[in-house]
Protein backbone atom coordinates (compact mmCIF):
# COMPACT_ATOMS: atom_id res chain seq x y z
CA UNK A 1 0.00 0.00 0.00
CA UNK A 2 1.22 3.49 -0.88
CA UNK A 3 2.49 5.71 1.97
CA UNK A 4 0.25 8.58 0.82
CA UNK A 5 -3.39 8.21 -0.28
CA UNK A 6 -5.40 11.43 -0.27
CA UNK A 7 -9.19 11.48 -0.68
CA UNK A 8 -11.48 14.46 -0.18
CA UNK A 9 -13.96 12.32 1.77
CA UNK A 10 -11.39 11.51 4.44
CA UNK A 11 -9.91 14.98 4.46
CA UNK A 12 -13.25 16.74 4.94
CA UNK A 13 -14.37 14.34 7.65
CA UNK A 14 -11.18 14.73 9.66
CA UNK A 15 -10.93 18.47 9.01
CA UNK A 16 -14.48 19.12 10.19
CA UNK A 17 -13.87 16.95 13.24
CA UNK A 18 -10.88 19.07 14.22
CA UNK A 19 -12.74 22.31 13.46
CA UNK A 20 -15.79 21.32 15.51
CA UNK A 21 -13.63 20.23 18.41
CA UNK A 22 -11.34 23.26 18.40
CA UNK A 23 -13.42 26.26 17.34
CA UNK A 24 -15.52 26.38 20.54
CA UNK A 25 -12.31 26.49 22.56
CA UNK A 26 -10.84 29.26 20.40
CA UNK A 27 -14.13 31.07 20.97
CA UNK A 28 -13.89 30.63 24.74
CA UNK A 29 -10.35 31.99 24.69
CA UNK A 30 -11.45 34.97 22.62
CA UNK A 31 -14.38 35.71 24.95
CA UNK A 32 -12.09 35.60 27.97
CA UNK A 33 -9.70 37.86 26.12
CA UNK A 34 -12.46 40.35 25.33
CA UNK A 35 -13.59 40.23 28.95
CA UNK A 36 -10.08 40.84 30.24
CA UNK A 37 -9.66 43.76 27.83
CA UNK A 38 -12.69 45.62 29.07
CA UNK A 39 -13.38 44.47 32.60
CA UNK A 40 -9.93 43.76 34.06
CA UNK A 41 -7.93 46.90 34.78
CA UNK A 42 -4.26 46.81 33.92
CA UNK A 43 -3.46 47.94 37.42
CA UNK A 44 -5.00 44.79 38.84
CA UNK A 45 -2.72 42.57 36.79
CA UNK A 46 0.39 44.52 37.59
CA UNK A 47 -0.54 44.74 41.27
CA UNK A 48 -1.12 40.99 41.61
CA UNK A 49 2.07 40.05 39.81
CA UNK A 50 5.11 39.60 42.09
CA UNK A 51 7.74 42.25 41.49
CA UNK A 52 10.53 39.68 41.66
CA UNK A 53 11.08 38.41 38.13
CA UNK A 54 11.88 34.82 39.09
CA UNK A 55 8.92 34.62 41.45
CA UNK A 56 6.66 36.19 38.80
CA UNK A 57 7.71 33.55 36.28
CA UNK A 58 7.18 30.74 38.79
CA UNK A 59 3.69 32.06 39.62
CA UNK A 60 2.73 32.41 35.95
CA UNK A 61 3.60 28.79 35.35
CA UNK A 62 0.91 27.83 37.85
CA UNK A 63 -1.86 30.13 36.65
CA UNK A 64 -3.40 27.29 34.66
CA UNK A 65 -4.46 25.67 37.93
CA UNK A 66 -6.99 28.43 38.58
CA UNK A 67 -7.33 29.52 34.94
CA UNK A 68 -7.55 26.30 32.89
CA UNK A 69 -7.34 27.16 29.21
CA UNK A 70 -6.33 24.75 26.47
CA UNK A 71 -3.74 25.71 23.89
CA UNK A 72 -6.34 26.72 21.28
CA UNK A 73 -7.69 29.49 23.47
CA UNK A 74 -4.52 30.68 25.12
CA UNK A 75 -3.08 32.91 22.37
CA UNK A 76 -5.75 35.63 22.40
CA UNK A 77 -5.59 35.69 26.20
CA UNK A 78 -1.81 36.07 26.22
CA UNK A 79 -1.97 38.81 23.63
CA UNK A 80 -4.46 40.66 25.76
CA UNK A 81 -2.54 40.16 28.99
CA UNK A 82 0.70 41.38 27.40
CA UNK A 83 -1.20 44.40 26.12
CA UNK A 84 -2.30 44.97 29.71
CA UNK A 85 1.24 45.04 30.98
CA UNK A 86 2.16 41.42 31.64
CA UNK A 87 5.84 40.97 30.88
CA UNK A 88 6.40 38.94 27.72
CA UNK A 89 8.50 36.33 29.52
CA UNK A 90 5.70 35.75 32.06
CA UNK A 91 3.15 35.59 29.24
CA UNK A 92 5.16 32.91 27.44
CA UNK A 93 5.53 30.90 30.64
CA UNK A 94 1.77 31.03 31.16
CA UNK A 95 1.18 30.21 27.47
CA UNK A 96 3.38 27.10 27.56
CA UNK A 97 2.38 25.86 31.01
CA UNK A 98 -1.37 26.40 31.20
CA UNK A 99 -2.36 23.79 28.55
CA UNK A 100 -0.57 21.18 30.69
CA UNK A 101 -0.57 22.42 34.28
CA UNK A 102 -4.31 22.54 34.79
CA UNK A 103 -6.81 20.28 36.58
CA UNK A 104 -8.63 19.13 33.44
CA UNK A 105 -5.46 17.84 31.82
CA UNK A 106 -4.35 16.28 35.09
CA UNK A 107 -7.61 14.38 35.36
CA UNK A 108 -7.68 13.26 31.71
CA UNK A 109 -4.07 12.04 31.97
CA UNK A 110 -4.87 10.11 35.12
CA UNK A 111 -7.89 8.47 33.52
CA UNK A 112 -6.13 7.68 30.26
CA UNK A 113 -3.26 5.92 32.02
CA UNK A 114 -5.29 4.11 34.62
CA UNK A 115 -3.62 0.80 35.22
CA UNK A 116 -0.28 2.19 34.02
CA UNK A 117 0.96 4.03 37.16
CA UNK A 118 -1.37 6.98 36.56
CA UNK A 119 -0.09 9.10 39.48
CA UNK A 120 3.45 8.81 38.22
CA UNK A 121 2.54 9.59 34.60
CA UNK A 122 0.32 12.51 35.55
CA UNK A 123 2.88 13.90 37.99
CA UNK A 124 5.69 13.58 35.48
CA UNK A 125 3.70 15.28 32.78
CA UNK A 126 2.63 18.25 34.89
CA UNK A 127 6.03 18.67 36.53
CA UNK A 128 7.92 18.50 33.26
CA UNK A 129 5.50 20.87 31.56
CA UNK A 130 5.87 23.37 34.39
CA UNK A 131 9.65 23.02 34.50
CA UNK A 132 10.10 23.56 30.77
CA UNK A 133 7.71 26.54 30.70
CA UNK A 134 9.53 28.20 33.61
CA UNK A 135 12.94 27.59 32.02
CA UNK A 136 11.79 29.20 28.78
CA UNK A 137 10.29 32.14 30.69
CA UNK A 138 13.46 32.72 32.69
CA UNK A 139 15.62 32.52 29.58
CA UNK A 140 13.46 35.10 27.82
CA UNK A 141 13.56 37.69 30.60
CA UNK A 142 16.67 39.32 29.17
CA UNK A 143 15.42 39.26 25.61
CA UNK A 144 14.07 42.45 24.08
CA UNK A 145 10.33 41.86 23.51
CA UNK A 146 10.47 43.79 20.27
CA UNK A 147 12.67 41.08 18.81
CA UNK A 148 10.03 38.50 19.75
CA UNK A 149 6.67 40.14 19.23
CA UNK A 150 5.30 40.54 15.76
CA UNK A 151 5.05 44.13 14.57
CA UNK A 152 1.60 45.67 14.85
CA UNK A 153 0.34 42.67 16.81
CA UNK A 154 0.72 44.33 20.17
CA UNK A 155 1.40 48.01 20.46
CA UNK A 156 4.30 48.59 22.79
CA UNK A 157 4.62 52.16 23.98
CA UNK A 158 8.11 53.42 23.42
CA UNK A 159 10.66 51.50 25.46
CA UNK A 160 7.96 50.45 27.94
CA UNK A 161 8.85 46.78 27.96
CA UNK A 162 12.44 46.74 26.86
CA UNK A 163 13.26 45.24 30.22
CA UNK A 164 11.26 43.30 32.78
CA UNK A 165 8.51 45.76 33.60
CA UNK A 166 5.12 45.55 35.24
CA UNK A 167 3.98 49.10 34.53
CA UNK A 168 0.23 49.40 34.02
CA UNK A 169 -0.83 50.40 30.52
CA UNK A 170 -3.90 52.09 29.13
CA UNK A 171 -7.08 50.03 29.18
CA UNK A 172 -9.31 49.52 26.17
CA UNK A 173 -11.73 52.32 25.71
CA UNK A 174 -10.31 54.31 28.57
CA UNK A 175 -12.36 57.45 28.91
CA UNK A 176 -14.81 56.53 26.15
CA UNK A 177 -16.74 53.54 27.52
CA UNK A 178 -18.68 54.04 30.73
CA UNK A 179 -21.92 52.05 30.95
CA UNK A 180 -22.03 48.29 31.40
CA UNK A 181 -23.88 47.73 28.12
CA UNK A 182 -21.27 49.76 26.25
CA UNK A 183 -18.53 47.75 27.90
CA UNK A 184 -20.27 44.51 27.00
CA UNK A 185 -20.58 45.48 23.34
CA UNK A 186 -16.95 46.53 23.33
CA UNK A 187 -15.91 43.24 24.89
CA UNK A 188 -17.87 41.32 22.26
CA UNK A 189 -16.30 43.30 19.43
CA UNK A 190 -12.85 42.66 20.82
CA UNK A 191 -13.61 38.97 21.26
CA UNK A 192 -14.71 38.87 17.61
CA UNK A 193 -11.51 40.56 16.46
CA UNK A 194 -9.42 38.19 18.51
CA UNK A 195 -11.36 35.20 17.25
CA UNK A 196 -11.00 36.22 13.62
CA UNK A 197 -7.28 36.85 14.01
CA UNK A 198 -6.76 33.50 15.69
CA UNK A 199 -9.20 31.16 13.98
CA UNK A 200 -7.81 31.76 10.52
CA UNK A 201 -4.50 30.19 11.61
CA UNK A 202 -6.29 27.42 13.48
CA UNK A 203 -8.11 26.42 10.29
CA UNK A 204 -4.88 26.28 8.28
CA UNK A 205 -3.28 24.07 10.94
CA UNK A 206 -6.35 21.85 11.07
CA UNK A 207 -6.26 21.37 7.30
CA UNK A 208 -2.64 20.27 7.34
CA UNK A 209 -3.25 17.96 10.30
CA UNK A 210 -6.30 16.42 8.61
CA UNK A 211 -4.23 15.66 5.53
CA UNK A 212 -1.58 13.88 7.58
CA UNK A 213 -4.11 12.07 9.74
CA UNK A 214 -5.93 10.50 6.83
CA UNK A 215 -3.57 10.39 3.87
CA UNK A 216 -0.30 9.17 5.37
CA UNK A 217 0.05 5.47 6.14
CA UNK A 218 0.82 5.27 9.86
CA UNK A 219 2.79 2.04 9.38
CA UNK A 220 5.71 4.10 8.15
CA UNK A 221 6.25 5.43 11.70
CA UNK A 222 6.14 2.08 13.51
CA UNK A 223 9.85 1.19 13.07
CA UNK A 224 10.68 4.35 15.02
CA UNK A 225 9.47 2.77 18.28
CA UNK A 226 12.46 0.50 18.72
CA UNK A 227 14.94 2.97 20.24
CA UNK A 228 14.29 5.29 23.23
CA UNK A 229 15.90 8.40 21.75
CA UNK A 230 14.50 7.82 18.30
CA UNK A 231 11.04 7.01 19.64
CA UNK A 232 11.03 10.10 21.90
CA UNK A 233 11.82 12.49 19.10
CA UNK A 234 9.49 10.59 16.78
CA UNK A 235 6.58 10.88 19.20
CA UNK A 236 7.19 14.61 19.53
CA UNK A 237 7.17 14.92 15.75
CA UNK A 238 3.93 12.96 15.64
CA UNK A 239 2.41 15.28 18.24
CA UNK A 240 3.30 18.25 16.04
CA UNK A 241 1.44 16.72 13.14
CA UNK A 242 -1.55 15.29 14.99
CA UNK A 243 -2.30 18.66 16.66
CA UNK A 244 -4.38 17.13 19.42
CA UNK A 245 -6.04 19.08 22.20
CA UNK A 246 -4.18 18.84 25.51
CA UNK A 247 -7.35 17.83 27.30
CA UNK A 248 -7.55 14.64 25.27
CA UNK A 249 -4.09 13.84 23.92
CA UNK A 250 -3.35 11.50 26.86
CA UNK A 251 -5.95 9.07 25.53
CA UNK A 252 -4.15 8.96 22.21
CA UNK A 253 -0.73 8.71 23.85
CA UNK A 254 -1.93 5.78 25.94
CA UNK A 255 -2.72 3.84 22.78
CA UNK A 256 0.84 4.07 21.41
CA UNK A 257 1.70 0.97 23.42
CA UNK A 258 4.62 0.00 21.21
CA UNK A 259 6.42 3.22 22.15
CA UNK A 260 8.32 3.55 25.49
CA UNK A 261 6.61 5.49 28.27
CA UNK A 262 9.19 8.29 28.17
CA UNK A 263 8.38 8.82 24.50
CA UNK A 264 4.70 9.12 25.35
CA UNK A 265 5.51 11.63 28.10
CA UNK A 266 7.44 13.67 25.53
CA UNK A 267 4.39 13.47 23.26
CA UNK A 268 2.15 14.83 26.02
CA UNK A 269 4.50 17.61 27.08
CA UNK A 270 5.71 18.84 23.71
CA UNK A 271 2.38 18.56 21.86
CA UNK A 272 0.44 21.11 23.95
CA UNK A 273 3.38 23.51 23.73
CA UNK A 274 4.03 23.31 20.04
CA UNK A 275 2.23 21.72 17.13
CA UNK A 276 1.12 22.60 13.63
CA UNK A 277 -1.88 24.67 14.58
CA UNK A 278 0.08 26.34 17.38
CA UNK A 279 2.79 27.29 14.89
CA UNK A 280 0.18 29.30 13.04
CA UNK A 281 -1.53 30.53 16.21
CA UNK A 282 1.75 31.69 17.76
CA UNK A 283 2.46 33.50 14.50
CA UNK A 284 -0.45 35.78 15.32
CA UNK A 285 1.53 37.09 18.26
CA UNK A 286 5.20 36.40 17.68
CA UNK A 287 7.63 36.84 14.83
CA UNK A 288 7.97 33.74 12.66
CA UNK A 289 11.67 33.46 13.42
CA UNK A 290 10.98 33.37 17.15
CA UNK A 291 8.25 30.78 16.70
CA UNK A 292 10.65 28.55 14.79
CA UNK A 293 13.39 29.00 17.41
CA UNK A 294 10.89 28.34 20.20
CA UNK A 295 9.75 25.13 18.51
CA UNK A 296 13.27 23.90 17.92
CA UNK A 297 14.34 24.81 21.46
CA UNK A 298 11.39 23.04 23.05
CA UNK A 299 11.92 20.04 20.79
CA UNK A 300 15.54 19.67 21.86
CA UNK A 301 15.07 20.39 25.58
CA UNK A 302 12.04 18.16 26.07
CA UNK A 303 13.54 15.46 23.86
CA UNK A 304 16.78 15.40 25.81
CA UNK A 305 15.08 15.42 29.22
CA UNK A 306 12.73 12.61 28.22
CA UNK A 307 15.26 10.42 26.44
CA UNK A 308 18.28 10.99 28.71
CA UNK A 309 17.06 11.82 32.22
CA UNK A 310 13.54 10.46 32.53
CA UNK A 311 14.50 6.78 31.94
CA UNK A 312 16.75 6.93 35.05
CA UNK A 313 13.97 8.49 37.11
CA UNK A 314 11.48 5.87 35.99
CA UNK A 315 13.98 3.11 36.69
CA UNK A 316 14.44 4.44 40.23
CA UNK A 317 10.68 4.20 40.67
CA UNK A 318 10.77 0.60 39.54
CA UNK A 319 8.77 1.40 36.41
Amino acid sequence: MSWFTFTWQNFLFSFLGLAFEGLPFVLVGSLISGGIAVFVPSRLITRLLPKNRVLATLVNGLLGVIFPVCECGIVPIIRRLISKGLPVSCGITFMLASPIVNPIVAFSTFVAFRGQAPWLIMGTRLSLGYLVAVIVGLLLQKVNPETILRERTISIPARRRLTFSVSPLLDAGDGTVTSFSQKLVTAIRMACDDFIDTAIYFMIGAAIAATFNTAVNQEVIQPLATNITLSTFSMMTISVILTLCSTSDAFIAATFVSFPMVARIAFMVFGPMFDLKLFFLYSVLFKKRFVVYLGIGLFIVIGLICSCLLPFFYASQGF
Partner: protein
Amino acid sequence: MRARASDFVNGVTLVGVGVVLLVFFFTGRIDQYLHPQFRPWILVAGVIFCIMGVVYAGAKSTVQCCTGGECVHHANNPFRSLLTFFVLFIPLVAGTVFSKDSFDHNAVLNRGFVNDITRLPGAPSVSKTTSDQAIIPPEMLGVDIDETASQPLPQDDPNRPVSSPQSADANPTPASDDGSAQYLPKSADGNVALDVTDLLYAESEESLRKMFTGKMIEVIGQYLLGADTKHFKLVRMFIVCCAADARPLVLPVEVSTPINASDMGWVKVTGTPAFSPNGERMHVVLKATKVEPADPPADAMLY
Protein backbone atom coordinates in the same frame (compact mmCIF):
# COMPACT_ATOMS: atom_id res chain seq x y z
CA MET B 1 -16.99 53.02 4.41
CA ARG B 2 -14.14 50.48 4.28
CA ALA B 3 -14.57 49.85 8.00
CA ARG B 4 -18.32 49.29 7.60
CA ALA B 5 -17.77 46.89 4.70
CA SER B 6 -15.19 45.05 6.74
CA ASP B 7 -17.51 44.88 9.75
CA PHE B 8 -20.28 43.51 7.54
CA VAL B 9 -18.10 40.77 6.03
CA ASN B 10 -16.76 39.79 9.44
CA GLY B 11 -20.27 39.74 10.86
CA VAL B 12 -21.48 37.53 8.01
CA THR B 13 -18.52 35.20 8.53
CA LEU B 14 -19.26 34.80 12.23
CA VAL B 15 -22.98 34.28 11.69
CA GLY B 16 -22.16 31.82 8.91
CA VAL B 17 -19.87 29.80 11.18
CA GLY B 18 -22.60 29.82 13.82
CA VAL B 19 -25.22 28.63 11.34
CA VAL B 20 -22.97 25.79 10.15
CA LEU B 21 -22.48 24.62 13.74
CA LEU B 22 -26.20 24.81 14.46
CA VAL B 23 -27.06 22.93 11.26
CA PHE B 24 -24.73 20.11 12.24
CA PHE B 25 -26.14 20.06 15.75
CA PHE B 26 -29.84 20.10 14.90
CA THR B 27 -29.57 17.66 11.98
CA GLY B 28 -27.71 15.23 14.22
CA ARG B 29 -24.74 15.12 11.85
CA ILE B 30 -22.53 16.26 14.70
CA ASP B 31 -22.98 12.81 16.24
CA GLN B 32 -20.69 11.40 13.55
CA TYR B 33 -17.95 13.90 14.34
CA LEU B 34 -17.72 14.38 18.09
CA HIS B 35 -17.77 12.48 21.34
CA PRO B 36 -21.03 13.21 23.21
CA GLN B 37 -19.34 15.35 25.84
CA PHE B 38 -18.19 17.80 23.16
CA ARG B 39 -21.52 18.06 21.32
CA PRO B 40 -23.27 20.57 23.61
CA TRP B 41 -20.39 22.95 22.96
CA ILE B 42 -21.42 23.06 19.32
CA LEU B 43 -24.89 24.31 20.22
CA VAL B 44 -23.54 26.87 22.66
CA ALA B 45 -20.81 28.04 20.27
CA GLY B 46 -23.26 28.23 17.35
CA VAL B 47 -25.60 30.52 19.27
CA ILE B 48 -22.74 32.68 20.53
CA PHE B 49 -21.25 33.01 17.04
CA CYS B 50 -24.60 34.20 15.68
CA ILE B 51 -24.96 36.77 18.48
CA MET B 52 -21.38 37.93 18.07
CA GLY B 53 -21.79 38.28 14.31
CA VAL B 54 -24.92 40.40 14.66
CA VAL B 55 -23.32 42.58 17.33
CA TYR B 56 -20.16 42.94 15.32
CA ALA B 57 -21.91 43.96 12.13
CA GLY B 58 -24.33 46.25 13.96
CA ALA B 59 -22.23 47.97 16.61
CA LYS B 60 -20.25 51.09 15.90
CA SER B 61 -16.52 50.54 16.13
CA THR B 62 -15.73 53.75 17.92
CA VAL B 63 -13.79 52.37 20.84
CA GLN B 64 -10.11 51.73 20.77
CA CYS B 65 -9.40 48.12 21.52
CA CYS B 66 -5.69 48.22 21.98
CA THR B 67 -3.25 50.15 24.10
CA GLY B 68 -1.79 53.47 23.26
CA GLY B 69 -4.63 54.38 20.93
CA GLU B 70 -3.29 52.12 18.24
CA CYS B 71 -5.49 49.24 17.11
CA VAL B 72 -3.42 46.26 16.12
CA HIS B 73 -6.25 44.04 14.94
CA HIS B 74 -6.39 43.14 11.28
CA ALA B 75 -10.14 42.69 11.26
CA ASN B 76 -10.92 46.19 10.01
CA ASN B 77 -9.05 45.60 6.77
CA PRO B 78 -11.57 44.61 4.04
CA PHE B 79 -9.08 42.37 2.25
CA ARG B 80 -8.28 40.65 5.50
CA SER B 81 -12.01 40.23 6.12
CA LEU B 82 -12.46 38.59 2.73
CA LEU B 83 -9.52 36.30 3.42
CA THR B 84 -11.10 35.33 6.73
CA PHE B 85 -14.38 34.66 4.93
CA PHE B 86 -12.68 32.31 2.47
CA VAL B 87 -10.45 30.54 5.00
CA LEU B 88 -12.91 30.27 7.87
CA PHE B 89 -16.37 30.10 6.38
CA ILE B 90 -16.03 28.58 2.89
CA PRO B 91 -14.24 25.38 4.04
CA LEU B 92 -16.97 24.80 6.62
CA VAL B 93 -19.66 25.27 3.99
CA ALA B 94 -17.79 22.98 1.59
CA GLY B 95 -17.57 20.40 4.37
CA THR B 96 -21.28 20.75 5.11
CA VAL B 97 -22.20 20.14 1.48
CA PHE B 98 -19.64 17.57 0.37
CA SER B 99 -18.63 15.62 3.49
CA LYS B 100 -20.01 12.09 3.61
CA ASP B 101 -19.66 12.07 7.42
CA SER B 102 -17.52 8.96 7.32
CA PHE B 103 -14.10 7.64 6.34
CA ASP B 104 -13.45 5.44 3.34
CA HIS B 105 -11.22 2.35 3.42
CA ASN B 106 -8.07 4.40 2.70
CA ALA B 107 -8.27 6.19 6.05
CA VAL B 108 -8.93 2.90 7.86
CA LEU B 109 -5.92 1.23 6.27
CA ASN B 110 -3.68 4.28 6.72
CA ARG B 111 -4.43 4.53 10.42
CA GLY B 112 -3.77 0.89 11.16
CA PHE B 113 -5.93 -1.36 13.28
CA VAL B 114 -6.02 -1.26 17.07
CA ASN B 115 -4.30 -4.44 18.22
CA ASP B 116 -5.06 -4.31 21.94
CA ILE B 117 -8.47 -2.87 22.73
CA THR B 118 -7.84 -2.93 26.46
CA ARG B 119 -5.48 0.02 26.00
CA LEU B 120 -8.36 2.18 24.83
CA PRO B 121 -10.51 4.09 27.32
CA GLY B 122 -13.98 2.66 27.92
CA ALA B 123 -15.43 -0.70 28.62
CA PRO B 124 -17.37 -3.39 26.80
CA SER B 125 -20.91 -2.26 26.14
CA VAL B 126 -22.41 -5.38 27.69
CA SER B 127 -21.23 -4.22 31.10
CA LYS B 128 -22.55 -0.68 30.73
CA THR B 129 -25.77 0.36 32.34
CA THR B 130 -28.47 1.46 29.94
CA SER B 131 -32.09 2.21 30.52
CA ASP B 132 -33.42 -0.43 28.19
CA GLN B 133 -30.93 -3.11 28.92
CA ALA B 134 -30.44 -5.41 31.87
CA ILE B 135 -27.26 -5.03 33.87
CA ILE B 136 -24.99 -8.00 34.08
CA PRO B 137 -24.20 -8.66 37.72
CA PRO B 138 -20.48 -8.28 38.42
CA GLU B 139 -20.17 -11.90 39.43
CA MET B 140 -21.38 -12.89 35.96
CA LEU B 141 -18.43 -10.97 34.50
CA GLY B 142 -16.05 -12.96 36.63
CA VAL B 143 -15.79 -10.52 39.54
CA ASP B 144 -15.56 -12.15 42.92
CA ILE B 145 -18.23 -10.75 45.20
CA ASP B 146 -15.86 -11.22 48.13
CA GLU B 147 -14.15 -7.82 48.11
CA THR B 148 -11.08 -9.11 49.89
CA ALA B 149 -10.54 -11.59 47.12
CA SER B 150 -11.33 -9.27 44.22
CA GLN B 151 -8.72 -8.83 41.53
CA PRO B 152 -8.55 -5.99 38.98
CA LEU B 153 -9.47 -6.77 35.41
CA PRO B 154 -6.51 -7.20 33.03
CA GLN B 155 -7.08 -3.78 31.47
CA ASP B 156 -6.72 -2.21 34.90
CA ASP B 157 -3.47 -3.92 35.74
CA PRO B 158 -0.82 -4.18 33.04
CA ASN B 159 1.46 -6.15 35.31
CA ARG B 160 -1.00 -8.95 35.42
CA PRO B 161 -0.35 -11.15 32.38
CA VAL B 162 -3.18 -11.68 29.96
CA SER B 163 -4.49 -15.21 30.24
CA SER B 164 -2.08 -17.43 28.43
CA PRO B 165 -3.40 -19.83 25.81
CA GLN B 166 -2.49 -22.68 28.09
CA SER B 167 -4.38 -21.37 31.06
CA ALA B 168 -7.20 -19.89 29.06
CA ASP B 169 -10.00 -22.09 28.00
CA ALA B 170 -9.42 -22.14 24.26
CA ASN B 171 -12.50 -24.19 23.57
CA PRO B 172 -14.78 -23.63 26.47
CA THR B 173 -18.04 -25.37 26.60
CA PRO B 174 -21.07 -23.31 25.75
CA ALA B 175 -22.07 -21.34 28.80
CA SER B 176 -25.74 -21.18 28.17
CA ASP B 177 -26.50 -22.66 31.54
CA ASP B 178 -24.28 -20.40 33.62
CA GLY B 179 -27.04 -17.92 34.16
CA SER B 180 -25.36 -15.11 32.27
CA ALA B 181 -27.27 -15.58 29.01
CA GLN B 182 -30.39 -13.92 30.40
CA TYR B 183 -28.46 -10.69 30.88
CA LEU B 184 -27.09 -10.43 27.35
CA PRO B 185 -28.87 -7.95 25.07
CA LYS B 186 -31.01 -9.65 22.45
CA SER B 187 -31.90 -8.59 18.91
CA ALA B 188 -35.37 -8.94 17.38
CA ASP B 189 -34.28 -12.28 15.90
CA GLY B 190 -33.41 -13.59 19.34
CA ASN B 191 -29.67 -13.46 18.70
CA VAL B 192 -27.26 -11.89 21.16
CA ALA B 193 -26.70 -8.31 19.95
CA LEU B 194 -23.16 -7.15 20.61
CA ASP B 195 -20.74 -4.46 19.55
CA VAL B 196 -17.44 -5.19 17.88
CA THR B 197 -15.79 -3.98 21.08
CA ASP B 198 -17.47 -6.68 23.17
CA LEU B 199 -15.92 -9.47 21.13
CA LEU B 200 -12.53 -7.75 21.06
CA TYR B 201 -12.58 -7.28 24.84
CA ALA B 202 -13.36 -10.97 25.13
CA GLU B 203 -9.95 -11.71 23.65
CA SER B 204 -8.40 -10.72 26.96
CA GLU B 205 -11.26 -11.50 29.34
CA GLU B 206 -12.03 -15.14 29.97
CA SER B 207 -15.40 -14.51 31.58
CA LEU B 208 -16.60 -12.75 28.44
CA ARG B 209 -15.25 -15.53 26.26
CA LYS B 210 -17.22 -18.07 28.26
CA MET B 211 -20.28 -15.91 28.02
CA PHE B 212 -20.13 -15.49 24.24
CA THR B 213 -18.89 -18.87 23.11
CA GLY B 214 -21.55 -21.01 21.51
CA LYS B 215 -24.04 -18.14 21.28
CA MET B 216 -25.49 -16.94 18.00
CA ILE B 217 -24.25 -13.37 17.92
CA GLU B 218 -25.29 -10.41 15.82
CA VAL B 219 -22.87 -7.56 15.15
CA ILE B 220 -23.19 -4.43 13.01
CA GLY B 221 -20.19 -2.80 11.37
CA GLN B 222 -18.64 -1.60 8.14
CA TYR B 223 -17.47 -4.09 5.55
CA LEU B 224 -13.78 -4.04 4.67
CA LEU B 225 -12.48 -6.50 2.11
CA GLY B 226 -10.20 -9.20 3.54
CA ALA B 227 -7.31 -11.21 2.15
CA ASP B 228 -9.61 -13.45 0.14
CA THR B 229 -13.28 -13.84 -0.69
CA LYS B 230 -13.98 -15.98 2.39
CA HIS B 231 -12.61 -13.46 4.86
CA PHE B 232 -13.44 -9.84 5.53
CA LYS B 233 -13.17 -7.39 8.38
CA LEU B 234 -15.99 -5.76 10.27
CA VAL B 235 -14.88 -2.22 11.12
CA ARG B 236 -16.05 0.22 13.78
CA MET B 237 -14.27 3.51 14.36
CA PHE B 238 -13.42 4.37 17.97
CA ILE B 239 -13.12 8.02 18.91
CA VAL B 240 -11.82 9.72 22.02
CA CYS B 241 -12.80 13.29 21.14
CA CYS B 242 -13.50 13.76 17.45
CA ALA B 243 -13.33 12.06 14.09
CA ALA B 244 -9.77 13.25 13.63
CA ASP B 245 -8.55 10.87 16.33
CA ALA B 246 -10.69 7.91 15.21
CA ARG B 247 -8.99 4.51 15.38
CA PRO B 248 -10.33 1.48 13.51
CA LEU B 249 -11.39 -1.55 15.53
CA VAL B 250 -11.67 -4.62 13.35
CA LEU B 251 -13.36 -7.94 13.90
CA PRO B 252 -12.21 -10.68 11.52
CA VAL B 253 -15.13 -12.49 9.91
CA GLU B 254 -15.08 -15.81 8.10
CA VAL B 255 -17.79 -16.76 5.62
CA SER B 256 -18.43 -20.04 3.83
CA THR B 257 -19.45 -18.44 0.56
CA PRO B 258 -18.27 -15.14 -0.94
CA ILE B 259 -20.55 -12.24 -0.22
CA ASN B 260 -21.34 -9.14 -2.16
CA ALA B 261 -21.10 -6.00 -0.02
CA SER B 262 -20.04 -2.50 -0.84
CA ASP B 263 -16.73 -1.24 0.48
CA MET B 264 -17.21 0.32 3.95
CA GLY B 265 -20.95 -0.27 3.62
CA TRP B 266 -22.86 -1.16 6.79
CA VAL B 267 -23.63 -4.85 7.25
CA LYS B 268 -25.17 -7.01 9.94
CA VAL B 269 -23.25 -10.22 10.55
CA THR B 270 -24.79 -13.16 12.37
CA GLY B 271 -22.60 -16.03 13.52
CA THR B 272 -20.71 -17.69 16.32
CA PRO B 273 -17.42 -16.44 17.72
CA ALA B 274 -14.38 -18.70 17.79
CA PHE B 275 -11.49 -17.90 20.10
CA SER B 276 -8.09 -19.38 19.37
CA PRO B 277 -4.59 -18.76 20.76
CA ASN B 278 -2.18 -16.76 18.67
CA GLY B 279 1.12 -16.25 20.42
CA GLU B 280 0.42 -15.04 23.96
CA ARG B 281 -3.02 -13.72 23.17
CA MET B 282 -6.39 -15.09 22.27
CA HIS B 283 -7.86 -13.97 19.00
CA VAL B 284 -11.46 -13.97 17.91
CA VAL B 285 -12.96 -14.76 14.54
CA LEU B 286 -16.67 -14.52 13.89
CA LYS B 287 -17.79 -17.47 11.79
CA ALA B 288 -20.69 -15.94 9.93
CA THR B 289 -23.81 -17.77 8.89
CA LYS B 290 -25.53 -14.70 7.51
CA VAL B 291 -24.34 -11.32 6.24
CA GLU B 292 -26.88 -8.74 5.19
CA PRO B 293 -26.92 -4.98 4.50
CA ALA B 294 -27.87 -2.85 7.50
CA ASP B 295 -28.70 0.72 8.35
CA PRO B 296 -25.93 2.66 10.09
CA PRO B 297 -26.44 2.81 13.87
CA ALA B 298 -27.43 6.12 15.44
CA ASP B 299 -23.89 6.50 16.72
CA ALA B 300 -21.64 5.32 13.92
CA MET B 301 -18.61 5.96 16.11
CA LEU B 302 -17.82 4.01 19.26
CA TYR B 303 -16.38 5.79 22.28
